[in-house]
């Protein structure tokens, strides 16, 4: 019998029951909650007279709607100016009180973007099943967990039953071997993967990311990769547990301690695919081939290396794809064959569950240090992913590097990734963004998003247009 994949093992560990119709009940260990996708689920529980099955599996924090502006933020929930947003955050407060759910409230030191908070507190651990009413829950798979986003009906289902009704997904291995060049990051790797397999390439699969490049990557980098598994169509992305994982988890506030730690580690060491495991699909990339990426279109698969040009739809044979490229270029205000480096930026956003961890901020600060944003760039937002990340960055003086560079240092929130709070693009504005989606209108009505790594975003802020972060750093460093 062939060996098991990491996904097979996680599935097996959480299988409550296989039903005759091919569905299965899968037990959920950790359920993260935020204000946007939970109110209707809590309401459903109340209407049916149900209670959470295991309330200690729930952890809530508001992130999508909370202001990033320090003054507005300081006034707490009552101070949120947008009335509808305020009601939604208040509703989360009320629901957590009513059902006695642990919540890191708006200005609690544990608050942050759910996908940053989970790993950094140890609320999400290797070997867990993790769900959240948010598609970027795939992030937590970086710890060797089975984590994926669910809709609000499933949020209610997990609250009420501690289980999800699932069919097993297929196994895909994305292996990145070799070595990344200097200045090439996890974000570039995952954008290159999505560029290669497309936004539906992973549909129906759980993707395991492996190979030398992933093994050599920090936990922050692995989280960036798994975060965007959903942008390749896969609900779940994951990375095998190794020493990097264990070193990261050890000492986290909610990680097991003492004897329990040893017992947990023994269990976690088996969380990797067996050598003879069989995958339904294997995709391979070489680290050396990956260059800093920039998205030019309105889907994350529409990416190109920074030195390349915007594609010409005339060269696309497939009619649906050609129409997609034409529509994207029109929306983005770009012309076929235009150099990526000639795209001028109006705003820059450094943040989101993809790239708002301490390592991301360090990478952006390394570029911003001693420099200043271009006059033509109206605004550069730096939004740490959590209160803990913010505190650490301030301890390292990163916030001063940013403010001296003319960047704005903000409060932890999802901010301009999806523009539910006041941070948004105006129609027609181009933004270099470290977030995950370049969909039409995502960062604001008529806004034009270009997905990049934190270093590339900072470099674009300084230059006023896209620039290869590798040349930029070398040139300026030696000047």
């Amino acid at each position, binding site marked *: 019998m062939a060996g098991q994949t990491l996904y097979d093992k996680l599935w097996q560990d959480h299988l*409550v*029951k296989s*039903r005759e*119709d091919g*569905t299965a*009940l899968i*037990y959920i260990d950790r359920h993260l909650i935020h204000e*946007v*996708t939970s109110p*209707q689920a809590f*309401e459903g529980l109340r209407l049916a007279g149900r209670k959470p*099955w295991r309330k*200690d599996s729930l*952890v809530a924090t508001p992130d*999508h709607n909370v202001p990033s502006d320090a003054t507005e933020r300081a006034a707490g929930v009552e101070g949120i100016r*947008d009335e*509808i947003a305020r*009601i*939604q955050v208040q509703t989360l407060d009320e629901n957590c009180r009513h059902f006695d759910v*642990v919540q890191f409230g708006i200005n609690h030191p544990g608050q942050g973007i759910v996908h940053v908070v989970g790993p950094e*507190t140890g*609320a999400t*651990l290797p*070997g867990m099943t993790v769900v959240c009413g*948010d*598609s970027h*829950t795939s992030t937590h798979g970086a710890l060797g967990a089975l984590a994926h*986003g*669910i809709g*609000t*009906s*499933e949020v*209610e*289902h997990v609250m*009420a*039953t*501690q*289980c999800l*009704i699932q069919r097993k997904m297929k196994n895909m291995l994305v292996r990145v071997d070799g070595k990344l060049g200097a200045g090439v990051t996890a974000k570039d790797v995952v954008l290159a993967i999505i560029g290669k397999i497309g*936004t*539906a390439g992973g*549909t129906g699969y759980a993707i395991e990311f492996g190979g030398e490049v992933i093994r050599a990557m920090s936990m922050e980098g692995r989280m960036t990769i798994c975060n965007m598994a959903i942008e390749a*169509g*896969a*609900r779940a992305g994951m990375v095998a547990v190794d020493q990097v994982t264990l070193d990261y988890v050890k000492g986290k506030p909610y990680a*097991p301690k003492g004897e*329990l730690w040893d*017992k*947990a580690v023994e269990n976690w060491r088996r969380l990797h695919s067996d050598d003879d495991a069989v995958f339904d699909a294997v995709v391979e990339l070489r680290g050396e081939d990956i260059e800093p990426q920039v998205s030019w279109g309105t889907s994350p698969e529409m990416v190109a290396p920074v030195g390349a040009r915007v594609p010409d739809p005339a060269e696309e044979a497939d009619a*649906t*794809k050609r129409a*997609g490229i034409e529509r994207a270029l029109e929306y983005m205000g770009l012309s076929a064959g235009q150099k990526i480096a000639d795209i001028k930026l109006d705003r820059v956003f450094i943040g989101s569950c993809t790239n708002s961890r301490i390592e991301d901020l360090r990478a952006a600060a390394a570029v911003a240090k001693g420099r200043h944003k271009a006059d033509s760039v109206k605004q550069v937002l730096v939004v740490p992913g959590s209160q803990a990340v913010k505190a650490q960055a301030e301890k390292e003086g990163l916030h001063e590097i940013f403010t001296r560079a003319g960047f704005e240092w903000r409060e932890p929130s999802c901010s301009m990734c*999806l*523009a*539910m709070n006041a941070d948004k693009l105006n129609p027609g504005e181009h933004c270099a963004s470290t977030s995950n989606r370049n*969909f*039409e*209108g*995502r960062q604001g*009505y008529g806004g034009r998003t270009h997905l990049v790594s934190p270093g590339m975003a900072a470099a674009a802020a300084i230059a006023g247009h896209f620039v290869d972060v590798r040349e930029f750093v070398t040139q300026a460093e030696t000047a």
Partner: protein
Amino acid sequence: MKAFVCHKGLVAPMDRANVDTDLIIPKQFLKSIKRTGFGPNLFDELRYLDEGQPGQDCSKRPLNPEFPLNFPRYKGASVLLARKNFGCGSSREHAPWALDDYGFRAIIAPSFADIFFNNCFKNGLLPIVLDEAVVDQLFREMYAQEGYELTIDLEKQQVVKPDGDVIGFEVDAFRKHCLLNGLDDIGLTLEDAEDIRAYEAKRREQAPWLFDAVK
């Protein structure tokens, strides 16, 4: 949940690939704490010429005359014909809520994004996967014939065209059962409460650290 047994309805096009959930229902409408009322904001950025705001009276907003759902011939449509990877992006269930609230009962496409596909079934909305060539043909027939209607019979797993041609489709047996009977799957899962408790007890022994409350 609303049951879906058999439905005959006017077909309308969403003729582009990779329609994402931001396009189906933009983020400003996600601030609502309700499940209903999203219909007027379905495809908001394509449907209107201005930027929509929550709580607005949409009947006074300027309509985009080039957007098919605004054409008189598609008024009252309840079957949406779409392209590959429909519903990609976020997990927001507001997307199927908006489609349902607008009046759609079924969506036909060559493929759907996983989370969206799953969310549809929880809301009495039937997503149907058909071969790309078949979808292409349906698009051609729909464009050629005003008032083009399809009958969708979930029991028989068939799409019936106006000329009587029948196209079969696949559907997961459990989802079909829930949809035909309008069942609440929480109630069904709770019938297995004993199994869940037994699993939990065993797991607590094996991996006690998973049960430490976050306080």
